[in-house]
């Protein structure tokens, strides 16, 4: 992308616009809304089963009945949105249950860190990583949004398919050191993704005439079942001895050395996450996944081997990635009206109800809306950093009540959250079934993250492959018809093959293969 000739004046214009945004968004009243939004958002994010999208959806009617004007409603809801992205990590780290789907990757190293007594370090590192990711992404949104919108035009079915292949090819090394188990888990996820209406023929598949299965299995149902409900089963079985619930948290100190050590991971995670967010078909979950996998692949030796066992970089990269993706996802939402994720879809709904139509002209026609939104994102970020680093204990307190309170609480929130999402008792039964599946998989040492990834991306991957086949009249070479697609395929193949060779090199006595690591 070439810089436009009027680069200097562009910067001045951006700053002037930003000043205007702050002048609208930075009143004591909106600041109060931002603080409330951040607080509520962090709690919503931290509670398993209540994610950013149902959090924001639940708050829309409240903001209307409070009679908020467009700007105030936007400030409140974007604060909740960013807050939930921050909050998701708290239960990932402390309970091994992701608060929302992008926080899934944070369980991999965050929970082992907590088990080693480094919960506070994990929370601080991930909090700072969230801040770095969200802040840089917001700045990116501010400067590049109109140009970035064009990136979406470069991605057709073939390119998206290659992008999803990249995700699945790099999946091998996740969580478990047994590639076959990860592949099996991904296959289960892809299988579940096939349920529902086939978009290319309009025919229902594997629905057994059940109307609730027409839209397929909601990944939130799967994630709450596989993580939260399975954790409850596990807790009951072990009488709380070997469960995640009840991790103790020491004093919150800022681990400066660890922050310095992970700064590279944060920046790389931010870059990857932002790009994933900007692409409408990718979103925050893919952003945090790719950020984690990339970080693992650039690490060397013992550092690499410690991924999945409590490496702080494994916490920093995905958290920076998912928060950057949350900011990035606003780019296609504002400039094209294409929501990149469930939450941006809800925010899009809010804008439409306020008679603001996102699209290519939004920046030109409604600058006051765009710039006050950006200003409120920046405000929310600073508020969230303060809440999530020095004050994180407040939120931890909520999760560190005794097990006999927490456990029924988690169960209840799981049920209420899922019911509020879909309004159907069928999904609650499905969630329990996923809980059983998650419990069995844990016993067998099969990682559950690939299942979620399969459900999350399987549909989009298939749709894009079939669209590509329709467009090319069945010519498979179409999948390799653009430089972007070829580049992604090369990265996918390298990602798939490299670990096989690297493992040989790494298999030295310095990094002993520990079979017990398969267990969790």
């Amino acid at each position, binding site marked *: 992308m070439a810089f436009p000739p009027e680069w200097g004046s562009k910067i001045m214009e951006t700053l002037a616009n930003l000043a205007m945004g702050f002048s609208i968004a930075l009143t004591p009243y909106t600041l109060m809304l931002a603080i409330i939004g951040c607080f509520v958002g962090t709690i919503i994010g931290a509670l398993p089963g209540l994610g950013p999208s149902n959090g924001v959806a639940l708050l829309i009617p*409240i903001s209307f*009945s409070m009679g908020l004007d467009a700007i105030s409603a936007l400030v409140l809801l974007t604060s909740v949105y960013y807050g939930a992205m921050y909050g998701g990590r708290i239960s990932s780290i402390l309970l091994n249950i992701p608060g929302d789907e992008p926080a899934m990757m944070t369980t991999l190293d965050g929970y082992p860190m907590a088990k080693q007594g480094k919960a506070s370090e994990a929370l601080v590192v991930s909090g700072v990583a969230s801040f770095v990711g969200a802040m840089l992404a917001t700045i990116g949104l501010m400067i590049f949004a109109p140009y970035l919108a064009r990136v979406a035009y470069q991605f057709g079915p073939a390119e998206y398919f290659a992008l999803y292949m990249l995700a699945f090819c790099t999946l091998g090394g996740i969580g478990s050191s047994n590639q076959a188990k990860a592949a099996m888990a991904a296959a289960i996820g892809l299988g579940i993704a096939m349920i529902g*209406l086939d978009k290319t023929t309009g025919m229902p598949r594997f629905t057994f005439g059940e109307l609730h299965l*027409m839209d397929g299995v909601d990944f939130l149902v799967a994630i709450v079942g596989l993580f939260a409900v399975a954790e409850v089963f596990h807790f009951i079985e072990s009488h709380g001895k070997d469960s995640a619930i009840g991790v103790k948290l020491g004093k919150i100190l800022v681990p400066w050395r660890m922050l310095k050590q992970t700064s590279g991971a944060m920046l790389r995670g931010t870059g990857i996450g932002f790009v994933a967010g900007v692409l*409408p078909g990718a979103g925050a979950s893919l952003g945090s996944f790719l950020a984690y996998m990339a970080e693992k692949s650039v690490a060397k030796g013992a550092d690499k081997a410690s991924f999945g066992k409590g490496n702080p970089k494994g916490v920093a990269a995905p958290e920076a990635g998912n928060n950057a993706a949350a900011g990035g996802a606003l780019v296609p939402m504002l400039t094209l009206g294409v929501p990149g994720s469930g939450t941006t879809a809800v925010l899009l*709904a809010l804008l439409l*109800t306020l008679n603001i139509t996102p699209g290519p002209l939004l920046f030109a026609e409604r600058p006051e809306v765009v710039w006050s939104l950006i200003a409120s994102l920046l405000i929310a970020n600073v508020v969230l950093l303060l809440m999530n680093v020095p004050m994180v204990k407040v939120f931890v307190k909520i999760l560190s009540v005794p097990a006999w309170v927490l456990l029924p609480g988690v169960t209840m929130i799981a049920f209420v959250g899922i019911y509020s999402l879909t309004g159907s008792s069928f999904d609650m039964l499905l969630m329990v079934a996923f809980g059983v599946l998650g419990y069995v998989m844990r016993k067998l040492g099969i990682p559950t993250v690939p299942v979620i990834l399969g459900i999350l991306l399987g549909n989009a991957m298939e749709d894009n492959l079939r669209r590509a086949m329709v467009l090319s009249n069945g010519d498979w070479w179409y999948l390799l018809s653009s430089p972007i697609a070829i580049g992604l395929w090369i990265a996918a193949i390298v990602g798939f093959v490299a670990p096989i060779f690297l493992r040989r090199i790494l298999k030295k006595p310095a990094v002993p293969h520990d079979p017990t690591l398969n267990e969790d």
Partner: protein
Amino acid sequence: MKIWTRAAAAALLMTVAIPASAAECIAPANPGGGWDFTCRQIGRIMTELGLVPNMVQVTNLAGAGGGVAYTQVVSKRSSDPEVFVAASSSTTTRLAQNAFAGATADQVRWVGSIGGDPGVIVVAQDSPFQTLNDLVEAVKADPASVAFAGGSAVGGYDHLKVLMLLNEAGFDDMRAIKYIGLDGGADAITQTVGGFAQAMTGDLSEITGFIRSGDVRPIAVLSEERVAGFDNVPTAKEQGIDSVSMNWRGVYVPKDISDEDYDKWVDMLRQVGESEQWQAVMAENGLESYALFGDEFEAFVNQSIADVQDISREIGLVQ
């Protein structure tokens, strides 16, 4: 202070109890789509006109393209006089294709339609197609060379628009027409501007921003007459192809309510449709007036369903 009491009242309303007498609008999809829009706008205007005592509660009941809401209203709330449900061409399309697990159009009562979103065919700015006929001729010459992108799945309303248009133009090999279904109109435009599809079919309201920014060029609007604000866009009719596709916005109510209650809904909807507020909403969102109420609307629904069944049979979606 006032805002706090209101917030508290709202929170209470949300969590504790919803008064049984409050009117409720079911939007059979997640927030953000056309049905949600219909519910929220009609609800707001009903409150502003004083037709309902309280705020209209909007419930999002997503699933199966409206099927979950439809079957729920049929089976569980068939005599609830306080509920109405947002509907559009998609609702009747799916009913025609038997996509609601056996539910049929006569299991509810159709109240009326208060606006319509004209169908439109657009191409990328640099497309070689200048008129609708250029596009139609290209399809006739080689159907494999033109791919249409739309915001609905195969068999959905965006797909049917293309089929009905080409059918009217004298092309009858329905299965040879290339169509890719994406997640919503904006997504379909992105693919068309990117050059992956050659033309895009959707509702005018989802495309207005892209037309005004110059990213896409409309070559035909599928309405009876040219649309105000888009006076330079010719209708398909003017170009010799008599095809009209209006995605109407309306509502239905449960079957077993009394005739008085049904008449009350028809009357209220008519008042909303005639209000200044609704006219403003239509103007802002690229909707056209499309007013049909009561019996007239029921007849229209039955006719639409018969039409869609014919064409769906031709592409093999229904037997």
